């Protein structure tokens, strides 16, 4: 709870800084503030509690994921400094929106009442609509924002509809009460319908097939930093929320429900990977890659009762490598008007360090040891096999193979092609973010227990 309040306060502080003309201090102060809040979250981790009539329930799960979101936001905000160089007047707005988005995200994993859940998801979504469309002179950005908005609000309608049915069945929005009743009484059919509809809405948010269509377009059109946000923070938030929703309200999923998850999971992996093969735009490619990773993350739902640790590990690994990759992409495409793979030609010579970081992050996403991505997949496979869904694992493995095809396309471009132009100077922050995130990724690979054991 304190986390949420502090984050909201920090957002307001950002706006105040602009008013008082401390523009230069916004980024550092925000980062420091977020790090402080991280400490606050740590305190909450050890003291699970519920606040304000169960509106906010802080559990280990929520605390850990909140911490992850905060870390990711720190990275994102650090990257903002360079990204918004040319938009100095608006920087406070951007930062504030991101902070509020974080607030929404935290609300989404620590809700104790569906009202908080709904508001959280809306805060997050609306922030994203804005960020996606934020480059207002760019037609692509406009289009991305519009598409995202149209489909997103449609999905919100679905979620709302679902919540409505849940309410109809239970007469309450309180998660604890719903959980209790869902175990005991015979339920009207409204309840599963509601759950299904909410799930569908969340599947849209994590961009699972067939609700994924928005993702590539929006990722491609949005400003790169927004894409970074979407592909790391937002995806993680959405899957964590979905996980929490399902664990909270429907402890044992029916077989048919599981079948649907399996189908969607396999379809997401397959479509995402296959589609990514022939993309020229890196952002678009990573969008499809994100879709396939969504499929992987959905595998955690197959063994929902004890896969929280794996989910956390997978999302951490994925988002850290995503941050690292995007940091490099930001660097490479800084002064270009597109993000074609051709821009990466010769990066291996021009800037070996950045190239190495990107390579490492791509290898992590592809699931090559010793990066965290490998262990993430490994743990996931282990648990899925234990749960008896070998077929999903086989599909996942085949997809991992396909995914190498496009991840390596980028690596090939970096090392096997001649550079088009001279190397440019790399801003320090980009270096720092890229290296820190990839190092975290590797450390996570070497000591997986650190994260894995947080949620048992």
């Amino acid at each position: 709870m304190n986390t949420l309040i502090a984050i909201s306060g920090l957002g307001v502080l950002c706006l105040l800084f602009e008013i008082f003309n401390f523009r230069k201090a916004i980024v550092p102060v925000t980062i420091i503030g977020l790090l402080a809040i991280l400490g606050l979250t740590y305190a909450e981790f050890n003291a699970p509690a519920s606040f304000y009539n169960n509106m906010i329930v802080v559990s280990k799960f929520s605390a850990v994921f909140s911490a992850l979101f905060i870390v990711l936001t720190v990275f994102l905000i650090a990257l903002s400094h360079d990204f918004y160089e040319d938009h100095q007047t608006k920087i406070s707005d951007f930062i504030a929106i991101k902070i509020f988005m974080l607030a929404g995200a935290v609300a989404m994993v620590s809700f104790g009442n569906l009202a908080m859940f709904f508001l959280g998801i809306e805060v997050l979504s609306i922030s994203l609509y804005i960020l996606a469309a934020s480059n207002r002179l760019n037609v692509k950005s406009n289009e991305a924002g519009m598409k995202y908005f149209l489909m997103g609000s449609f999905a919100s309608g679905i979620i709302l509809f679902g919540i409505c049915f849940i309410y109809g069945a239970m007469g309450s929005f309180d998660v604890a009460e719903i959980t209790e009743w869902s175990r005991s009484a015979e339920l009207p059919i409204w309840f599963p319908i509601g759950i299904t509809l909410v799930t569908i809405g969340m599947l849209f948010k994590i961009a699972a097939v067939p609700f994924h269509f928005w993702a590539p377009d929006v990722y491609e059109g949005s400003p790169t930093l927004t894409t970074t946000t979407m592909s790391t923070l937002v995806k993680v938030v959405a899957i964590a929320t979905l996980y929490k929703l399902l664990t909270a309200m429907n402890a044992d999923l029916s077989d048919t429900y599981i079948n649907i998850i399996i189908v969607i999971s396999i379809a997401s992996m397959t479509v995402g990977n296959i589609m990514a093969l022939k993309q020229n735009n890196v952002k678009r490619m990573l969008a499809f890659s994100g879709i396939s990773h969504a499929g992987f993350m959905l595998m955690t739902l197959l063994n929902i009762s004890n896969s929280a640790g794996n989910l956390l590990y997978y999302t951490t690994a994925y988002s850290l490598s995503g941050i690292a990759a995007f940091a490099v992409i930001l660097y490479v495409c800084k002064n270009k008007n597109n993000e074609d793979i051709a821009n990466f030609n010769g990066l291996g010579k021009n800037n070996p360090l950045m190239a190495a970081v990107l390579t490492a992050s791509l290898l992590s996403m592809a699931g090559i040891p010793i990066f965290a991505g490998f262990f993430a997949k490994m743990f996931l496979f282990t648990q899925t096999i234990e749960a008896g869904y070998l077929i999903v694992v086989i599909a996942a493995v085949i997809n991992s193979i396909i995914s190498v095809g496009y991840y390596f396309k980028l690596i090939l471009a970096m090392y096997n092609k001649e550079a088009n132009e001279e190397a440019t100077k790399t801003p320090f922050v980009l270096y720092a973010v890229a290296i820190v995130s990839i190092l975290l990724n590797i450390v996570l690979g070497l000591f997986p227990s650190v994260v894995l054991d947080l949620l048992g």
Partner: protein
Amino acid sequence: MDNILNQIGIENYIFLSVILFCIGVFGVLYRRNAIVVFMSIEIMLNAVNLLFAAFSTYHQDAQGQVFVFFSMAVAAAEVAVGLAILVSIFRNMHTIDVGNLKNLKG
């Protein structure tokens, strides 16, 4: 006071709101004019709001109505942002035809 549902039945409210919701969906699919699409989404949200109110009566519980407030707030916020995006699209592209949004594809 008599419960109105004894006379009308919760099912009818459900059907009404389902059909209304579906009309909204239909609108989203059917029209290319962004404004009308927005309106369709509003219809969807209203359908849900109606159902909330009905369920609220069904359970004799005010929480459903409280939720409608939030839903309205969200709708308002969405419309504000959506229209802002729409305006900037119109400025750049001079059209609000959703079908023309095809720069991003493939």
